């Protein structure tokens, strides 16, 4: 049975169930004595019937979605000849892929063994059987569910309460998805990272000075000694993020101060959206800009000034990253500065201070926790930034503090390790998860510290 047919039948049963429940409730209410009313509106009775029809069938569909493929696969593999089943796992996976492709109806080169063709037929037969089973299950469960619920509908039934508690359960489940996402991130990255750290010791990873992620595909291959010391990557990340922060922080802070203290509403209304535009530009566009406009400019400038600026220099990537973070710093600082009460400024001005003295000595110290929090958040964004550095920074891990040279960062290495074709559990691919875990932990720490700083040192002005 086709999945779309099953879905249509399911929806049709639910709609019929809704109207049946509603109709029955209406019939009851018409038969009641004058002046008495039912507890719930007829539509709630309809929803109640629909609910009971929907949920059991939904469970069946989820079971099919999650388990069906594996069941069919197990049966197909069990049907293969014994010597084929004894093959190593990678070869078996390739064979399974072939079977899948043939089962989907693609033409092959005609060199398939008969058992592969038989296996493809068996896979199709298994799939058809299972989808037929699902169709029957959905029809039976939804009709039975609707009928049983329909029988419960009468004049005294409090359908609204049932429906509303179901809605509350749905809401709780939706809210838990956020927690599940965090748990999912932590576990998936943690799980693969543990596998990585079983192959490469944690100490070597965190403190090793040599990053060259080569692994042998065959046992006798040259260049099979891989070293996974991540310190060059950390250094590169820090350097590029540092350059970005050096650019973004002073300019962003001064922009926020100038816009909130020295300009009128009209100028603000023009300049602020302009800066918001910078915040909305996708980072891949910044990467293109960095690689094709800023880097050549820097290189030419370096040539004319006499020193060698690499075309993938940390300076170029850091410059563009600074432009990207600028609106972030500026808008957070702006909010914080505006939240300092006017009374403090007025008091300072009243005592004879100039505007700049007021800002430097009264407003900024009052706003400092918020600004520091914003600075940390911007730093965490800079560290986690990927596309700008992938397109504008280099790939070779060098230990250097010279911003004119090409360096690589943690995020670039994650991308290059995973975009190539590698087996999923080679140390090379797993290293990406190790790096991802480090990145996640560092940004999480920065965010938590930022929130703590803001919360702890923020002054409460009534």
């Amino acid at each position, binding site marked *: 049975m086709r999945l779309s047919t099953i879905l249509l039948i399911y929806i049709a049963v639910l709609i019929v169930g809704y109207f049946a429940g509603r109709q029955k409730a209406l019939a009851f209410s018409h038969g009641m004595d004058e002046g008495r009313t039912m507890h719930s509106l007829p539509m709630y009775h309809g929803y109640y019937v629909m609910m009971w029809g929907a949920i059991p069938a939904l469970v069946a569909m989820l079971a099919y979605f999650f388990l069906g493929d594996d069941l069919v696969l197990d049966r197909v593999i069990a049907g293969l000849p014994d010597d084929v089943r004894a093959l190593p796992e990678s070869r078996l996976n390739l064979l399974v892929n072939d079977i899948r492709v043939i089962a989907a109806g693609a033409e092959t080169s005609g060199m398939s063994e008969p058992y592969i063709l038989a296996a493809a037929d068996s896979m199709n037969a298994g799939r058809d059987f299972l989808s037929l089973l699902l169709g029957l299950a959905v029809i039976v469960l939804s009709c039975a569910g609707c009928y049983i619920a329909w029988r419960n509908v009468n004049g005294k039934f409090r359908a609204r309460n049932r429906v509303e508690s179901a809605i509350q359960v749905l809401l709780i489940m*939706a809210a838990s998805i956020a927690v599940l996402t965090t748990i999912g991130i932590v576990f998936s990255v943690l799980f693969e990272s543990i596998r990585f750290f079983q192959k490469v010791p944690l100490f070597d990873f965190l403190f090793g000075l040599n990053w060259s992620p080569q692994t042998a595909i065959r046992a006798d291959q040259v260049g099979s000694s891989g070293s996974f010391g991540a310190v060059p990557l950390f250094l590169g990340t820090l350097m590029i993020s540092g350059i970005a922060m050096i650019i973004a922080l002073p*300019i962003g802070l001064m922009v926020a101060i100038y816009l909130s203290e020295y300009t009128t509403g009209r100028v603000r209304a023009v300049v602020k959206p302009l800066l918001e535009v910078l915040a909305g530009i996708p980072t891949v*566009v910044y990467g293109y800009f960095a690689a094709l406009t800023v880097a050549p400019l820097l290189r030419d400038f370096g040539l004319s000034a006499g020193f060698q600026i690499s075309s993938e220099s940390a300076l170029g990537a850091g410059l563009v990253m600074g432009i990207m973070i600028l609106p972030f710093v500026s808008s957070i600082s702006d909010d914080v500065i505006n939240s300092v009460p006017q009374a403090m400024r007025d008091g300072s001005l009243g005592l004879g201070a*100039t505007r700049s003295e007021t800002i430097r000595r009264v407003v900024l110290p009052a706003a400092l926790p918020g600004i520091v929090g914003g600075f940390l958040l911007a730093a965490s964004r800079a560290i986690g930034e990927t596309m700008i550095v992938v397109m504008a920074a280099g790939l070779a891990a060098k230990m250097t503090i010279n911003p004119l040279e090409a360096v690589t960062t943690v995020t670039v290495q994650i991308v290059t390790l995973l975009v190539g074709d590698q087996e999923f559990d080679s140390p090379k691919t797993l290293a990406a*998860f190790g790096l991802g875990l480090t990145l996640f932990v560092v940004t999480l720490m920065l965010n938590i510290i930022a929130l703590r700083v803001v919360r702890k040192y923020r002054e409460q002005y009534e």
Partner: protein
Amino acid sequence: MVDDRSQNSVMRSSAETRKRVEASLRGRYRRESWFKTFGLMAVLVSVSFVVFFFVSIVSQGYTAFTQTYIQVDVYFDPDVITPDGSRAPEVLSKANYLRLVKDSLAAMFPEVSGRKNKRLLNRLVSTGATFELRDRVMAEPDVIGSKASWWFLADDEIDTWFKQYERGEDAESSGRLADAQLDWLQQLVSQGRLEQRFNTVFFTSGDSRDAEMAGIWAAAKGSFFMLLVCMSIAFPLGVAASIYLEEFAPRNRWVDLIEVNINNLAAVPSIVFGLLGLAVFINFLSLPRSAPLVGGLVLALMTLPTIIIASRGAITAVPPSIREAALGLGASPVQAVVHHVLPLAMPGMLTGAILGIARALGETAPLLMIGMVAFIVEAPQTPLDPSSALPVQIYLWADSPERAFAERTAAAIMVLLAFLLVMNASAVWLRSKYERRW
């Protein structure tokens, strides 16, 4: 002996204070004007960043919206197309149209001889020309035997040369065209056989190795499917979660944990979400790689915290009197929220959703992780077909050395920015039109 002055130093005369203050004023005012100048310069520097950025992108990309075409007199030779005279579609589709193109070009330049020169001549026209001819013949078999003048798409090197030539720049120095080709091109120009037309290929075709035939349609469709999946998952989930957290959640440790989680998730780098998608969706659930479905799921997880935070803000903005009035009239808490609070908070929620989607449109890093870097030529028919996405297409094209790809990348960036501008403008419009000040 106590100095007379030291006793008075505690209570200075007002005249002395005034003198001291006035002496320091000049320095203070000067520092004030320096500070103000710094602020102004910072604003000017930021604005000039924006202006410089847009000017550079637009100046690199606007040329990609036109495409060079060459007018060639084509003789639909029946001996080449249908040697046995039949007009059956299988015969027509397999005919040697490349021969037709070569013959037509040779007829225009009869003096060209030698294999090398003939190959250079054939390279003037795009490799897609054969398919254009084939489509024409299959649509109208009656043209067989006739002569017609046909505008073929020019090769991307010719396109680059012609655009530089028309702008009056020194086009010959790029060195990628042979001298013989430059001569022929000059002849074609003088005969008026080279023309620039609007580049519809860019908007209607998918990716290609030949720059003149590369377009963003497949990538745009992939992005559209992804955003559809993302919106249809993230918006209901986000609204439901925010309703629960604002209205029904008890104030205990678990709910605090959920709130902290959501705030942290909003700041996690996008590449970590890509790793999550890779490990869970592709590895564990075996969903198809490169499918907009997986991309949409990852983007939905990324956008969810943003939508939850924005929706919570919108719900908080609805005054409690609305809820209490509904409850007072006998509504249940769920009814009060769904029938009264939700419609009033909806404009704010939609604004937050549109802004979240606009951010998701530009995300590339998680898509690279789940495998959308493949070279996909056809547009996806369903969200389960392998596809690319617009930002990924920009990333892939940015690596190509041809000048024509560089201008197409900038043009694709312009299209992407236009979409984002429309989305942000509609969010702002929505907010200004429907948001109420209580």
